[in-house]
């Protein structure tokens, strides 16, 4: 019957640990990713998740003409490089940060409004036998305020 006494403790532990990891993710996004937006004003949206080596995330968003955007995508230091691609509706790659030495930010503007897709992938350390690394990855957007 000892196991029955352990269950609530274990459950609480899992809940607390998971929420704590997420709180750390928010703190990471705030401390590391938002400052990367520099002179661009953060839009206030929060897109962050714990990703593991090799894992991908996708984001769909409409970007508007005449607005100047910066996307900032960053992963915790314990993760391998984080790559991201920006694709149009026909899956054409418009930007690939691997071609820019895994840059964490990309500045862009659009002649006409478009819905774009951002695919983020955590690379792999390629260390067979070891537990895959995991950590927070955040995707943040900023734009320039028009006076």
């Amino acid at each position, binding site marked *: 019957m000892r*196991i*029955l006494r352990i*269950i609530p403790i*274990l*459950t609480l532990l*899992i*809940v607390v640990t*998971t*929420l704590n990891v*997420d*709180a750390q*993710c*928010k703190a990471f996004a*705030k401390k590391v990713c938002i400052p990367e937006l520099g002179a661009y*004003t*953060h*839009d*206030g*949206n*929060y*897109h*962050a*998740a714990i*990703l*593991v080596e*090799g*894992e*991908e*995330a*996708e*984001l*769909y*968003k*409409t970007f*508007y*003409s*005449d*607005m*100047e955007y910066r996307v900032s995508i960053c992963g915790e230091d314990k993760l391998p490089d984080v790559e991201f691609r920006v694709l*149009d509706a*026909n899956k*054409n790659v*418009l*930007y690939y940060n691997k071609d820019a030495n895994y840059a964490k930010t990309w*500045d*862009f*503007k*659009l*002649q*006409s*409004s*478009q*819905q774009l897709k951002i695919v983020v992938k955590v690379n792999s350390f390629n260390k*067979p036998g070891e*537990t*895959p690394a995991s950590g927070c990855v955040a*995707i943040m957007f900023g*734009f320039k*305020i*028009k006076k």
Partner: protein
Amino acid sequence: MNRKHGICSKILIVVLMFTSVLLGCKSGGTKTPKEEVVVSVPKDKAAVVEDIKQAEKIFNALPSPLESAMLIKSADARFDGSLLNPIGNVNSYVTNKSMALNLGVYTCDLSFASLYEQTQLIIDYMNAAKKMADGLGILKAIEQSQIDKLEENINNSEVIMEIVSETFMNSNSYLSDNNQPATAAMVLVGGWFEGLYISTQLVDMKDFNGNKLVGRIIDQKLSIDILIHLLESSKGNPAVDDLIVQVKKLKLVFDKIKITTSAIRPEFDKKSNTTVLKSQIKTDMTPEVFKELSAAVSEIRKTFVNI
């Protein structure tokens, strides 16, 4: 003894499954239903990697209330305080749904007032948003110290934008991190509708053709599917199900607008270190369709604010 141990192990697995499902979807993203119930302990690293590959995250990103307000400002529209949801309504919102929708609505109104430097309204609408966030149990979303900072910097638009952005992120990150994706989605929906409502109301029909604001309204057609996907990720929640019905009705009107775009050609501008995504767009919305759209938006927004 073995039988008792077996029963206990099963109970443990059920508890772990329940906990895992509870914590399954976080941070504003969605996971496939299949992934939410993957709770078995993988046997080897290959199995771990396989589970990881299944755990693909999808974010459906609507424009934030701040971005929605910015779109109105960038279309050179005028400010009209009578279009905002009166702050006197705050005490009427007592359900989770009405507070979530109106957190989005008030944050959009706050952003609109901030961009047009309406100093007294900024404080009033920050307090209204705080009331909604507090009602939803969002801890530390908008703290008194931030309202004090706002008052101290009421003529500094840069600081005001920072505070608006930060407080909104506090709310949506809290909801995402505390496994409340339906509430997080409703907040965004409220903000999106408020932006669209204000835009449609500000259009002067005498100046319809070539009106920048009309262009911004047409652009929202590009977000309607994202909005539906965002809500459908919380399907089964009665409040969200009602919203899906309303949004799908609105989509029928948006479907009457034609948008055709040419292929996108990225061009890097060395001087500004910025990529320009070049493309041509052709849109077609008649004044009749606009009126229909405007009426549909007003009707839905009314159900959000008049409760």
